[in-house]
C-alpha cells in the first residue's frame, strides 16, 4: 500500500510559487489580449457576455472565454434602513464600470448575484411576493445549497449575501472594478476567488498546463500541452453551452413570475469550488478510460484528442446511459448530465427563438484555479499558500432545481431511476478525482435590477 497520496503530496508543492502570485504569470505567458469581436452591447441579462470569440478545434466550434476571472463574495455592511442609499450607490458604481468598459472579454463582464440570506434578511416581504417560482419543483427558483451524494461530508454550504463575478482579458480592468466595489464600503468581503482560462487553441502550451507546472502541482507535467482544462479536454465547445437566452428564467417556461416581470431576463447561478486530483487522473486513468470517464463508455476517439464533439446528435439520454452502464458498469460525466441538461425536444421560446432538441440548457462560466481553496478569505483555513489544481465552478440555469437535477445526474441519479454507485466510485464519471469544498446558490437579477434587487419596493 502506497502511503504517499494527496495529503502527503500537498507538502511537495509547498516550495513552489504561492497560488496568488502565480496568476501574475497569466499576463506574462500570454502575448496580450486575444483578438475579440469589435462591436459589443450591454445585454439585459447580466450573465450573458457579448463579444466572445469562437475558434475551431478538431473541426468543432469552441468559445474562447476571458483570460482572467475573479469572484468576490460578501456579507452586506448595510441594514434595512440604509437599503435605498446602498442601492443607489452600487447602481452608480456599476453604471460607471459599464461606461468605462465595454461589456465583453475585451472590456469587463460584471455579474452581481444575490444569495438567499440577502433576500431573507433585508427584503423578506418583497422576496416572498416576487421571487420567481419553479413550476417543476414547486418551490422558489433559489434555495439553500445542498450536498450531493458524491460530495464529501465536509463540503461547506455557504451563506453569502452576494457574489460578484468579474471577467476580462485584462487583469487591470478586474483590479479597477474590485477597487471601486471595495471603496463603496457596502460589503464585508468574505472571499476572493481567482483563476484563468485559455486553451492552446492558437498553438503552444495552454495556460492550465503552464501554470500548473509553474506552481508545482503534482501531475501538472502530465497535462496535455494544449489542454483548455487541467483534466485534458475542451469544455467550452459551443454546442455544450446553452445558446442565447436559454438559461433565462422565462425562456423554457419552467418559471412562474407570479404576475410580475421584475426578474424576467434573470437567471440562477450555482457557485462551487472543486479540487482536482491531477496525479490520479493522469497516472491511474489511461487515455481511453479518461475519455470514458469524461464523456461516455464505449466512445472511440483518436488518441490525444482533446475536443470531443458534444453536439445535439451526440447527446445521451437515460436509456443510452443505462445501456452503457449495463455493458461497462460505468457512466460518463457528460453523458449522465446530458440526461437532464439537454432539451428533450425542439422548443419555441416566447420570443420566437427555436431551441433544437439536444441543445444544452446550462451556461457555464467556470474557470481553472490554483486557489486552495480561495485566494483570500476571512477564514484562515480557506487560504492555504500551497496551490491546488481545481475549478471555480460557475453555472447559470433557469432555476436552482434545474441545476440540482443536472448535478444529481452526474451522481447517477437519472430521470426514471438511480444507478447505484458508492460515493466517489471510479466508474461514476469524474467523481473519484474531484472533491467539492464549497457550494452556494444565487439569483442573478436582470441588469436593470442588479443593485440590491427588490430594495426599492
Amino acid at each position, binding site marked *: 500500500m502506497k502511503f504517499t497520496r494527496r495529503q502527503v503530496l500537498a507538502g511537495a508543492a509547498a516550495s513552489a510559487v504561492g497560488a496568488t502570485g502565480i496568476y501574475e504569470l497569466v499576463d506574462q505567458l500570454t502575448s496580450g489580449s486575444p483578438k475579440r469581436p469589435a462591436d459589443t452591447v450591454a445585454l439585459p441579462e447580466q450573465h450573458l457576455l457579448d463579444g466572445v470569440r469562437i475558434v475551431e478545434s478538431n473541426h468543432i466550434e469552441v468559445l474562447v472565454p476571458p483570460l482572467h476571472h475573479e469572484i468576490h463574495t460578501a456579507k452586506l455592511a448595510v441594514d434595512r434602513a440604509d437599503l435605498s442609499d446602498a442601492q443607489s450607490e452600487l447602481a452608480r458604481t456599476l453604471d460607471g464600470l459599464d461606461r468605462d468598459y465595454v461589456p465583453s472579454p475585451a472590456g469587463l463582464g460584471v455579474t452581481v448575484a444575490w444569495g438567499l440570506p440577502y433576500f431573507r434578511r433585508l427584503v423578506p416581504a418583497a422576496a416572498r411576493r416576487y421571487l420567481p417560482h419553479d413550476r417543476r419543483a414547486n418551490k422558489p427558483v433559489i434555495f439553500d445549497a445542498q450536498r450531493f451524494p458524491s460530495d464529501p461530508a465536509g463540503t461547506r454550504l455557504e451563506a453569502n449575501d452576494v457574489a460578484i463575478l468579474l471577467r476580462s482579458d485584462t487583469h487591470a480592468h478586474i483590479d479597477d472594478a474590485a477597487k471601486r466595489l471595495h471603496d463603496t464600503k457596502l460589503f464585508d468581503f468574505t472571499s476572493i476567488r481567482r483563476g484563468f482560462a485559455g486553451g492552446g487553441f492558437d498553438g503552444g502550451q495552454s495556460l492550465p498546463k503552464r501554470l500548473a507546472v509553474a506552481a*508545482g502541482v503534482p501531475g501538472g507535467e502530465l497535462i496535455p500541452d494544449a489542454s483548455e482544462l487541467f483534466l485534458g479536454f475542451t469544455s467550452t465547445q459551443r454546442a455544450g453551452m446553452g445558446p442565447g437566452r436559454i438559461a433565462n428564467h422565462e425562456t423554457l417556461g419552467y418559471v412562474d413570475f407570479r404576475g410580475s416581470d421584475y426578474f424576467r431576463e434573470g437567471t440562477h447561478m450555482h457557485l462551487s469550488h472543486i479540487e482536482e486530483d491531477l496525479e490520479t487522473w493522469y497516472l491511474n486513468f*489511461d487515455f481511453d478510460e479518461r475519455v470514458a470517464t469524461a464523456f461516455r463508455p464505449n466512445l472511440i476517439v483518436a488518441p490525444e484528442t482533446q475536443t470531443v464533439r458534444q453536439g445535439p446528435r451526440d447527446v445521451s439520454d437515460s436509456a443510452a446511459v443505462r445501456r452503457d452502464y449495463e455493458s461497462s458498469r460505468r457512466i460518463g460525466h457528460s453523458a449522465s448530465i446530458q440526461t437532464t441538461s439537454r432539451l428533450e425536444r425542439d422548443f419555441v421560446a416566447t420570443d420566437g427563438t427555436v431551441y433544437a432538441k439536444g441543445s444544452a440548457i446550462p451556461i457555464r462560466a467556470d474557470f481553472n484555479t490554483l486557489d486552495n481553496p480561495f485566494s483570500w478569505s476571512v477564514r484562515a483555513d480557506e487560504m492555504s499558500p500551497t496551490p491546488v489544481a481545481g475549478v471555480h465552478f460557475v453555472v447559470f440555469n433557469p432555476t436552482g432545481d434545474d441545476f440540482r437535477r443536472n448535478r444529481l445526474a452526474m451522481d447517477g441519479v437519472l430521470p426514471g431511476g438511480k444507478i447505484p454507485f458508492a460515493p466517489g466510485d471510479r466508474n461514476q464519471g469524474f467523481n473519484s478525482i474531484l472533491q467539492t469544498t464549497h457550494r452556494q446558490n444565487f439569483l442573478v437579477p436582470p441588469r436593470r435590477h442588479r443593485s440590491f434587487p427588490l430594495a426599492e419596493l
Partner: protein
Amino acid sequence: MAAMKALLAPALLLCVCGLLAAGCSDQAKKAVAAPPAAKALVCPDRPSWQHLADRISAPVYCPAWLPDPLIGAIGNRWNNINSVSPDRSYLESFVWQETGGGAAGGELHVNLRGYPGRTKIPTCRTGGSESRNVPCFADANGSVTERGLTATLYTVNQDADEWHALLLWRRYGNLYTLSEHIAPPLTYNHVIRYLHQELRSLVLVRPSAAT
C-alpha cells in the same frame, strides 16, 4: 556518496591548479580540458543478477546506479520483492520508505521487470468489484534513449508499477521495464531524470554459457 565523489574530484583538481597557477603544466590543462573517460559501470552484486539470468535463461539488466540509499543488489535490505513467475518473468523491487512527515518522510521505489520470450505488453486486472482486463503499461508519452537503449515512457501502469513512471524496451525477443514511483520527495520531473540515469546505468547480464 558516489555522486558527491564525482563532484569533488574536478573540484580538487581545480584547487590544485589554482595553487600552482603560475606553473600549472600544459599537460595538466589538457587533462582538465579532455572529456572524462567513460566510467565502467559496475553491477553492485553481479553474482545475484547472474543467478537470476541463469534461472530464467535470458539476459537481465542490473542497475549500476539507484538513488541513494538504494543499491541494486538482489537480497539486500532494500530488495523487498525478488520474484520469478512460472513463465520466467521476473520482478525485482527496491524500496526505501520513511514514514515521518514533512522533509523527513518519503519513498524511493524502483522496479525492474523482464518477460523472457515475449514482447507484447501483458494484461493486468484492475482489481475491485468491477475488475477488468487492462494493459499493464499504458499511455505512452514519448521515448527515452540512453547509451543506445531506446525505451518508451508509459505513465499509466498497474500492480507494483501503479503510480510509477515506467520505461519499456524490447531486446533479444524479450520485454523489459524499469519504473520508479512518483512520490515525495520526488516530483514527476525528478523521477524522469532518475529514470534517465538508471537507464544509462544498466548493466546487461547474460545467462552463463553452461545454462
